[in-house]
């Protein structure tokens, strides 16, 4: 059988789907709506300390990098499904390339904290 990148990108897509499904609704509900609307209060001293734990930064890294690859995989096929079949090659390159770039930025940001 010919070698293919398909198992790698599919695994990243799948892992990104799982972590998004479990974590993102609560995060956006709490941090994006409940806190700004004043329903709950954040303790900013505590949050700043929390974000400096290596484990918290590792979780954040996974939380950024996997959904980016999940996006890349979905967006790639969505664009092709919308009729850009002839550009499938460059689209795949741009999508996975953006996800890789985002992952590198995430690693640098979280490393420097």
């Amino acid at each position, binding site marked *: 059988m010919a070698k293919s990148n398909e198992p790698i990108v599919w695994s990243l897509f799948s892992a990104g789907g799982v972590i998004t499904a479990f974590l993102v609704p609560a995060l956006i509900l709490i941090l994006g709506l409940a806190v700004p609307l004043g329903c709950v209060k*954040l303790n900013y001293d505590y949050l700043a300390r929390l974000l400096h734990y290596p484990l918290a930064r590792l979780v954040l890294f996974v939380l950024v990098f996997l959904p980016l690859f999940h996006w890349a995989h979905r967006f790639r096929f969505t664009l092709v499904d919308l009729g850009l079949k002839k550009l499938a090659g460059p689209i795949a390159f741009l999508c996975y390339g953006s996800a890789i770039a985002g992952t590198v930025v995430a690693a640098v940001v979280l490393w420097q904290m």
Partner: protein
Amino acid sequence: MSKPYVRPMPADWWLRRGSYLLFMLRELSSVFVALYVLELLCVADRSRGGPAALETFFTALQSPGWILFHSVVLAFALLHTITWFNLTPQAIDVRLGEEKVPAVLVAGANYAAWIVVSVVLGWILLRH
């Protein structure tokens, strides 16, 4: 050898049926989720400025534009979660002995775990 015939597909095929539109919205959810995790990365970056910088960031999120954006992200995130869990029984064949575990139970286990994870996450974030 002649080229295989590819049936031309209109660009608006996904507007022609409710289930196609839902499929397209599900695929689109990944765009909003990706934007949101990048926002979380900004939060992490701001935390270098200490608690005051974080407070400034979250205060800015009170503007109607941000609330609207976050409402849209929440709707797409829920669409992702629901479609993902409902597909799990089709992706994983769970068996107990010879018996196939019913799809409702497999999806149900995911929903139960989702609630537990969300509560724990809320507890971690909102501890004082």
